[in-house]
C-alpha cells in the first residue's frame, strides 16, 4: 500500500528513506528494467539501513497506493 513509517521489528524510521532508495535505484536500472544486486546493497548501506529487519521493509514494499486512489 504505502511504505510503513517505521520498521516493524526495530522501530527505525524508514519511510523517508524509501523515496531516496526508489529514486537511486531508478537511475541505475538497465535497459531490461533490472538492477544489479550490488547496487541495491550499496544504496541501502549508503542510506544507513544496516539491519536486515529494516532492509526487508524497503525491499519487500509494493507501493500500491496509486492504484487504490481512483477508488477512494
Amino acid at each position, binding site marked *: 500500500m504505502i*511504505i*510503513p513509517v517505521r520498521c516493524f521489528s*526495530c*522501530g*527505525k524510521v524508514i519511510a523517508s528513506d524509501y*523515496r531516496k532508495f526508489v529514486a537511486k535505484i531508478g537511475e541505475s536500472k538497465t535497459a531490461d528494467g533490472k538492477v544489479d544486486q550490488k547496487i541495491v546493497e550499496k544504496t541501502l548501506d549508503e542510506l544507513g539501513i544496516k539491519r536486515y529487519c529494516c532492509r526487508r521493509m524497503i525491499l519487500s514494499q509494493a507501493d500500491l*497506493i496509486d492504484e487504490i486512489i481512483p477508488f*477512494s
Partner: protein
Amino acid sequence: MAMKILESSPRFARFEITDITTSEANALRRTLIGDIPKLAIDKVSIHHGQIRDKDGNVFGSSLALFDEMIAQRLAMVPLVTDLKMNFRDECTCEGKGCTLCTVTYSINKLGPGTVMSSDLQPLNNPSAVPSDLDIPIVKLRKDQALLVTADAMMGRGSLHSKWQVSSGVSYKVHREFTFQKSAFHRWTSLKEKYPNAVLTENKERITFTDDNGDGEITSMSGEKGVEVTEDQNRYVFKFETDGSLPAIEVLDYSLKRIPQRLNTLLDSLVTPD
C-alpha cells in the same frame, strides 16, 4: 565501573562500560528501548465532509487510507522532544491537557499531492517539529483534502512503539582477535582496512578488536591461526535514535532512570507490623 564513549553523533552512540554484570547491561538495554520519555501524537481529529478552499472549490475527505491508518502513521512520526515537558497524568492540569503536557498540531492540505510529515504544523510549541520531514502520510487525489488536528503527549516506549526513541540497541562483550602472522596471511589487508581496530602488534602476532562494529573482523573467528579472547567485564553498547532526542541525552537519561526505578521499588517496600 567506568564508562567510555567510543563514538557519538546526534543520532548514534557507541560506548563501553567496564566492570558490570550481564544483568546490569541488560537493564540498561531495556531502559534505552522502553523507558525514555518522548513526544508522540496520541489523539487525532479528522474532519469529515466537504472541505472548501478560498476560491470555493469543493474537496472530499474520503481518502485512500482509513482514518485509523492515517492516525497511526501520524503517531509514528518522530517529534523533537523537550524532556522538561510533563506527562499528562502527572501534570498540574490534572489530565485535562495544557501547554505544559500537550502539543497541538494541525494539517491542512488540499490535493493533489502527498501529505508529508513536514505538513504537521505545531500550534503552541514551535520547537516541537517533526525530526524527519520526508515521511509520506497519505496521497491525495485532485479532489481530496485532509484537515486534521492532533494532540501529542509524552509517553514511554514500553507502552507503544510510537514512543520508542532508540532502535537497534545492543551490547556485546569486548573481544580480542589475535592473529598468528605466520598462519593467517590476510592480517595485512585487515590492518590496512581497520587501522583503528589494532590493539597490539609484535613480530609474531597482531591483535584486533571488533568493538568498532567492523563485521569483517568478527567473521574471522574460527579461522585457522586466529585466537579469540572475551572479556566478560567489558560491555560495548550501541544504539541509534530517531532524532526526537540526541543520543547522548538519551544515554544520560537512561543512566539516571535505572536508580530512580530501583528506588521506587525500595520505597514501596513496607515493614510488616
